[in-house]
């Protein structure tokens, strides 16, 4: 077992890769009562075209299958795994994102038993046509619930605008129609391809004793047999740099219009240190341009173009990413235009110097240290970073090393007019009687 101490953060991380390929990380937190564990596969909604385990030819699977599989992992021949976690005093849950499926629990008692349950249930698939059919009604209601949420529709609307071919444009849960095609056989195919321990990370953080926990995990894993790991072949279509659709609107029952301006990054194949540096630099550049101390924010807020729902964000994965800026607004056209002006002006003449960088860097370091109080943040983010070849605990040194030209260079790749798109939600025009 390797042990790495991060002096500046006062954290010690224990890690080991097991013979079956599983990467295990343990981070004890002083003073905490709870333990939070995530067991995550590098498999999300974008992995819909791949060579199945043991096969030769790539196949395409129905939209929403990774999320469907996540739901079905909880049901076993002898009942529901939630029941078992509840008996052991653990709150369990799971989520599916574009790139990951994570199973998790938090508990303040019976930690070893709960880790055992987590490993065992994710490593023993049980799917039948009957249980698969039964789940369709539940997931249809979940999809319908999201369909009624304007903020979710806004988020997906802008991503659909930005991407022409990449499966990130497909809703994570699929559609009510697409999930009807899912069968137990599909689920086994996806499970066998993506749930091999060599494609997974186990992260445990909180009130945990690293040595004995690692021994327990090793014993648990050594009792199970797995096929030899094979490299997973995932197929992604070519994606142009330009935004696929420049502008689109949707009508929904909302009190006020909502708008997002999205910008697609140019560099979509980064990983490791290069990715970390780019992501942090671009985030700081966006903070300077659109954060709460920016000229843009001041003008937009005082002019009433934005309200408390205003947000901006930049995130990047391998193959896709997006910067998003938007708000509920009575003037979606003015807001979208002003956001684009701000981007144009910064492209023409970079307005920020050392003092600006120092300020937003301090803000970001503070945010990161605050986040390290949260076991959930650590486990989820560490896993996301690890799947992209980055280390979460490098964030502070990388931030400290950034220079003004780095921000400028990162921004230059996430700003061009051709990479932008606008998505607006409007309330339907009421007929006046």
């Amino acid at each position, binding site marked *: 077992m390797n042990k790495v101490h991060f002096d500046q953060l*006062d954290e010690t991380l224990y890690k080991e890769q097991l013979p079956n390929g599983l990467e295990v990380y343990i981070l004890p937190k002083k003073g905490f009562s709870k333990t939070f564990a995530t067991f995550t596969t590098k498999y999300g909604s974008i992995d819909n075209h791949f060579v199945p385990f043991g096969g030769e030819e790539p196949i395409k699977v129905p939209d929403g299958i990774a999320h469907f599989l996540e739901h079905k992992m909880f049901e076993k021949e002898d009942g529901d795994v939630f029941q078992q976690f*509840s008996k052991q005093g653990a709150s369990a849950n799971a989520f599916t994102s574009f790139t990951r499926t994570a199973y998790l629990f938090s508990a*303040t008692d019976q930690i070893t038993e709960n880790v055992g349950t987590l490993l065992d249930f994710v490593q023993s698939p049980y799917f039948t046509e009957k249980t698969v059919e039964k789940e369709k*009604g539940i997931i249809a*209601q979940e999809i319908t619930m999201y369909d009624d949420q304007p903020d979710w529709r806004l988020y997906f609307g802008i991503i659909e605008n930005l991407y022409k071919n990449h499966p990130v444009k497909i809703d994570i849960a699929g559609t009510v129609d697409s999930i009807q095609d899912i069968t137990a056989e599909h689920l086994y195919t996806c499970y066998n391809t993506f749930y091999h321990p060599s494609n997974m990370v186990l992260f445990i953080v909180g009130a945990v004793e690293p040595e004995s926990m690692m021994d327990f995990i090793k014993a648990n894993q050594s009792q199970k047999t797995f096929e030899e790991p094979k490299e997973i072949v995932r197929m992604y279509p070519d994606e142009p740099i330009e935004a696929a659709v420049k502008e689109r609107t949707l009508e929904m029952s909302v009190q006020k219009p909502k708008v997002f301006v999205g910008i697609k990054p140019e560099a979509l194949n980064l990983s490791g240190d290069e990715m970390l540096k780019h992501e942090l630099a671009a985030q700081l550049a966006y903070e300077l341009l659109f954060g709460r101390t920016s000229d843009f*924010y001041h003008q937009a807020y005082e002019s009433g173009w934005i*309200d*408390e729902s205003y947000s901006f964000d930049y995130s990047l994965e391998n193959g896709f990413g997006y910067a998003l800026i938007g708000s509920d607004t009575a003037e979606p056209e003015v807001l979208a235009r002003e956001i684009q002006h701000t981007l144009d002006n910064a492209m023409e003449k970079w307005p920020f110097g050392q003092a600006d960088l120092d300020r937003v860097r301090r803000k970001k370091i503070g945010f990161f240290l*605050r986040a390290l109080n949260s076991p959930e943040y650590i486990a989820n983010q560490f896993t996301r970073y690890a799947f992209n070849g980055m280390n979460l605990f490098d964030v502070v040194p990388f931030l400290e090393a950034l220079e003004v030209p780095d921000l400028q260079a990162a921004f230059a790749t996430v700003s061009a007019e051709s990479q932008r798109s606008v998505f607006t939600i409007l309330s339907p025009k009421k007929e006046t009687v």
Partner: protein
Amino acid sequence: MFQTMNIAKGVNVHVNETTQFKTINFSLKFKDKLTKEKASARSILANVLQHSNEVYPSHTALRMVLDDLYGTSLYIDSSKRGNEHIVTLNVETVNDQYLSEEGVLEKVLNLMYIVLFKPNLENGFFKETIFNREKEAVKQRIESIFDEKTRYAQQRMLELALPEHPASIPANGTLEEVERVTNEKLFEEYQAMIHDNEIEIYAVGDIQAETISAYLKEYFKFEDRETSVDAPAVELVQPAQSRVVEFEEMKQGKLHMTFYTPITFRDEKFPVMQLMNGVLGGYAHSKLFVNIREKESMAYYVSSSYASQFGLMFVLAGIDSKLEEKAVKLVLEQLEEVKKGNITDTELDQTKALLVNQLREALDSARGQIDIYDQYMELTEAFEPDYLISKWKAITKEDIAQAAQQLSLEMTYFLSGKEDDSVE
């Protein structure tokens, strides 16, 4: 957990000295009576005070100094508990130990003083432009509830079931009352908040209780104030209608049911009701989840919640609009099971285990420690988890059944997605 010091009559400082966190958290809670007028005015006030002040006269200037203090977070929010309205100044700053700079804490305390005592005034009132802008912001916040249909449906049901009751008064006030607040009125509310409100001040982190309370006493100079006698709970009257259906342009139907119970937060049976709610619909092992979601496959979410301050229990479900009747029937059937005491040992043990876990977990965040301590202060002087855990442990199925028998269904509210469900 917390050491309590009184720094003026009606002003208490509670400090938890701990190295568990990398940050230091402060909460200053200003407590007043909950009315629509007060909630509305105090929500604007919260916004105005966090916008800017005499020393940092623009929003940008204030946010810049916070960024410089390693992204210290500072915000003021409006909330309610029972009959009380609470304005809270929340501040979180990184412990110097993790920074290459010292003296951050002192600067943050000074900034908290400025935010509260050096407002941005013009001719003796808040700056008119800021007042108008923040009034607008609060109105927009209230209006935005409509976009989240679950929150909207819950608010509609409470307004219909219990108009004018504290349970239905939103913490941010109402559009009508926000509109009526004048700049003069706002300044009066500000004076009342600083000089007359009861104040609970919390600090959690690697700090010394004595130092913090001495600092607050010396620099903040809060005067003595009258401590109000606990206002009695407002009685629950029967709603004018027992079933209401409304329509919106949406796909899913939102079922919201309100039950009354005589068991409130201050009742000795309060822990029994917590368990009863858990057995019925608090968790993924609960009766509602197992039967309505897992067995019937008719909902993604279906749960119950207990608003102990008012003696209310709610059941919420997102369902197909055609299935309202069936869903109500199934919910009542499950409640009937609880009333009859048809609860397995496993259900009882699971619910107890998860309540314990939830409580212990919540205490793993500074914010959780503050909220729980503040909430239980009126029941027990120095809250410890065992205060509740020992009570939960002793509860039997019969206790739970008895608590369930005291529930009465008072309103079923359905926000339906389709106007005409006869067409299929």
